[in-house]
């Protein structure tokens, strides 16, 4: 699933001394009735912004809590560089957490909350550091207030400052933006990314929001049912998903059943409902039998039947539009194909052509290089979030 070798990341800042990558080996957490995390192997290179992405109950928070020391693994190892910390007490680990509900101490002022970690480690003069940290999160004027007097976004920043001030080797973020409204969340995403770049610490961010993970993280690991389905840079995961779960959980995908005809040069040929489509070899994750041919909705081109399609690839004819929704920058069509499946097509509203009405007969097409091919043994609906 993941690389256990010493893979130097381009994001790793130049540091002296041995690298302090966070390394999880064969990490497992079992509860009485189920296994939350199954033999997880993972390396988070030092200085990276790493996202663990998955639906609720996939084991991502359990993984985070094991790294923080709040849960004890059933088996496996956690290490930071050469130091094993699997069973180290939470208060002895160079790891801090920004909790989902912030967990700010209600009886302490903002400044005292931020100074908490330093004080516990015996730092006498915390004033300057607290002031610097509050400045970083732009809360200097709120220093003497109590947490309940602050807004959700401000509390979130206090939680961040309280963890960051300790300069942990790894900062864990447990759905830190989950409680904020959409607009504030977008702002905080940029802010978090800015702060991470500024302080250069390793961030491990747990989220179920795929957009959040893709916006911020250098590397995203998609987790499902206790295992990592796929890991890589956001663009790689999005463009070349390896499982139906990743294809559906990260954005949306059209998955069309097809018969795999075999490899031909550096392409794999697939027969899809009579038409022949091809998929680049490195995007084909199955080479025989039946498979799911995948194509992202925004990669599908659409035109009225018989009209020329702009930059066509594999063309499939005989569909008609069943639903049109206008979302401003684009128009989302549902197209019923001759074999009964409805495909999603997102088209930019460039104004080159009028919107297609419901019932219009259409042809669709896509560039072969954007298609991907998945093993048909997987559930085509895996990872589709129920609204």
């Amino acid at each position, binding site marked *: 699933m993941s690389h256990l070798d010493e893979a130097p990341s381009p994001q790793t800042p130049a540091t002296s001394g041995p690298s302090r990558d966070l390394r999880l080996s064969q990490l497992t957490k079992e509860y009485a009735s189920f296994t939350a995390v199954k033999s997880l192997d993972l390396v988070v290179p030092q200085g990276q912004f790493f996202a663990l992405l998955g639906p609720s109950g996939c084991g991502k928070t359990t993984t985070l809590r094991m790294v923080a020391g709040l849960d004890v693994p059933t088996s496996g190892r956690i290490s930071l560089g050469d130091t094993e910390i699997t069973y180290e007490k939470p*208060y002895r680990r160079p790891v801090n957490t920004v909790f989902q*509900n912030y967990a700010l101490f209600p009886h302490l002022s903002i400044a005292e909350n931020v100074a908490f*970690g330093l004080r516990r480690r015996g730092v006498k003069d915390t004033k300057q550091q607290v002031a610097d940290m509050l400045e970083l999160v732009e809360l200097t004027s709120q220093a003497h207030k109590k947490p309940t007097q602050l807004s959700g976004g401000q509390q979130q920043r206090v939680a961040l400052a309280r963890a960051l001030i300790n300069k942990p080797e790894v900062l864990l973020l447990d759905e830190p933006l989950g409680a904020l409204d959409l607009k504030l969340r977008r702002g905080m995403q940029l802010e978090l990314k800015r702060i991470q770049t500024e302080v250069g610490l390793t961030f491990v961010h747990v989220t179920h929001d795929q957009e959040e993970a893709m916006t911020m993280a250098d590397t995203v690991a998609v987790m499902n049912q206790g295992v990592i389905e796929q890991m890589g840079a956001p663009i790689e995961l999005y463009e070349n998903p390896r499982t139906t779960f990743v294809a559906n959980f990260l954005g949306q995908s059209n998955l069309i059943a097809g018969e795999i005809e075999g490899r031909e040069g550096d392409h794999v040929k697939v027969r899809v409902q009579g038409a022949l489509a091809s998929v680049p070899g490195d995007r084909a994750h199955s080479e025989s039998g039946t498979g799911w041919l995948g194509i992202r909705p925004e990669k599908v081109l659409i035109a009225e039947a018989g009209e020329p399609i702009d930059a066509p690839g594999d063309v499939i004819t005989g569909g008609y539009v069943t639903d049109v929704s206008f979302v401003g920058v684009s128009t989302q069509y549902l197209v019923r194909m001759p074999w009964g499946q409805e495909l999603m097509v997102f088209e930019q509203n460039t104004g080159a052509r009028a919107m297609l009405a419901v019932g219009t007969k259409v042809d669709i097409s896509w560039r072969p290089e954007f298609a991907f091919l998945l093993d048909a043994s997987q559930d085509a609906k895996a990872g589709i979030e129920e609204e």
Partner: protein
Amino acid sequence: MTSTAGVPPVSTNDASGVKPRGRKLTGYWLILPGALWLLIFFVIPFYSLLASSLFDPDGSVLTGYEMTWHFGNYWDAFDQYKGQLWRSLWYAGIATIICLVVGYVLAYAIAFKAGRWKNLMLVLVIAPFFTSFLLRTLSWKLIFADDGWVVGFAQAVHLTDLLNIVGLTTTDDRLLATPFAVIAGLTYNFMPFMVLPLYASLEKVDLRLIEAAGDLYASPARGFFRVTFPLSLPGVVAGTLLTFIPAAGDYVNAQLLGSTNTKMIGNSIQSLFTTQLDYATAGALSVILMVIIVAAVMIYVRTAGTEDLV
């Protein structure tokens, strides 16, 4: 975000508008039952108590009691009974501290460690109330009986010697009729009043805050003193008040478990009122006790309420 731009401003000032006349009076109507209760059961009796504390000290049932504004009663009562007053505060204070320490451990265990036994444990804390206060106190006479196993055990582990040294007992072979017995009785009888408020405030402490403290380099002990304990302070204040105030005025424990040397102020007031019929001194003593307690409570609450304690 901009979708609200076209919506006409909806009137939101229903609440800020002029209140209907009836609404203004609602508050007063709601206070009325409480105010009446306070008037009948507190203000009037208190007035009568204050009045009797200023009666002529030479009055008796035969000659009648006369209001002479005799403020000297206060000094005389204080002078004569300062020993009992001091003893009451002292016993109540020790009992409160023991209740706090033992009760905190118990409340902590119920709140955080009891799991599915939580409700059963709470019922057990309250269970003694199903029996009469007097009966329960009397049964401590059996427990502390001179030939009982408790005394035997205390002697065997030299607890009696220790109690002797600190002055809580006077002989090696008795627990009954000593300050120790009185304080034990007070501790026992008022324990639920300590445990319940402590439990209520500990139960409200968010466990995630304790986790956060651990994450921020606080060992379990430091986490307790920096986070859990400060957050349970409202319970500590409520519990100590609910224990100390009635304990300071209690006379049953001293009467049943103590001796003439362990008389508390409650015993003196009771005997002045019911047997000696010296209403003036009894009234003055009651007022003095009340003033002392109110002053102590005010100082205590003010101190506990400041942030330095936290």
